[in-house]
């Protein structure tokens, strides 16, 4: 069974940069797309970004485009989400998820989440 392992907790100050990771311990990393989903405290799920591990084709939600950058490293089977300048409003749990390459596929596997706290 696929397992996505995320960095667990990050505490940062406003204005700092951050990159969180999601390592896929399964097989055939390049056969999948990976996404990030935000969940603010006490709130619902929001899709942020999606990337193909095969060719790094990337899609961003309009709500997050320009604020974050998603990337993959096929040599380590890891997906990343990066901020150049964090804001307090970025405080949230961030889940990575994996889906097959077929259009319309759901997120079948999820990581356990990375809790990001941004506070001065």
């Amino acid at each position, binding site marked *: 069974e696929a397992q996505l392992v995320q960095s667990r907790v990050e505490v940062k100050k406003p204005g700092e940069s951050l990159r969180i990771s999601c390592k896929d311990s399964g097989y055939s990393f390049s056969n999948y797309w990976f*996404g990030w*989903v935000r969940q603010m405290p006490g709130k*619902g*799920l*929001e*899709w942020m970004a*999606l990337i193909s591990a095969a060719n790094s084709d990337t*899609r961003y*939600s*309009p709500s997050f485009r320009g604020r974050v950058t998603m990337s993959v490293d096929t040599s380590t089977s890891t997906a990343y989400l990066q901020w150049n300048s964090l804001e307090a409003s970025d405080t949230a749990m961030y*889940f990575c*998820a994996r889906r097959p390459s077929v*259009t*319309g*596929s*759901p*997120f*079948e596997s*999820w*990581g*356990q*989440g990375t809790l990001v706290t941004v506070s001065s």
Partner: protein
Amino acid sequence: QSALTQPRSVSGSPGQSVTIPCTGTSSDIGSYNFVSWYQQHPGKAPKLIIYAVNTRPSGVPDRFSGSKSGNTASLTISGLQAEDEADYYCCSYAGTYTPYLFGIGTTVTVL
């Protein structure tokens, strides 16, 4: 694009059935049979329980079922059990550049 509409909460007694509607538009639910449902227990990651409107992944109990009519999808939990108490999110494909549009989430309470 706005989040899909779900009731904030539904409740039922053990053994009863509950249905959670998820309302979208002709640009998302109404155009594609790519509706999925996720279950999330407190402090846990979401778990896929329904995809392609009405298909259950392996290991998901058959008391969970999905359907769609027009711009509205629905999740039905039959024979409600205590462990079904959780948050449930619908999700629809809405095109190449919006592959995932989530609902606002519904809290299911087992009385």
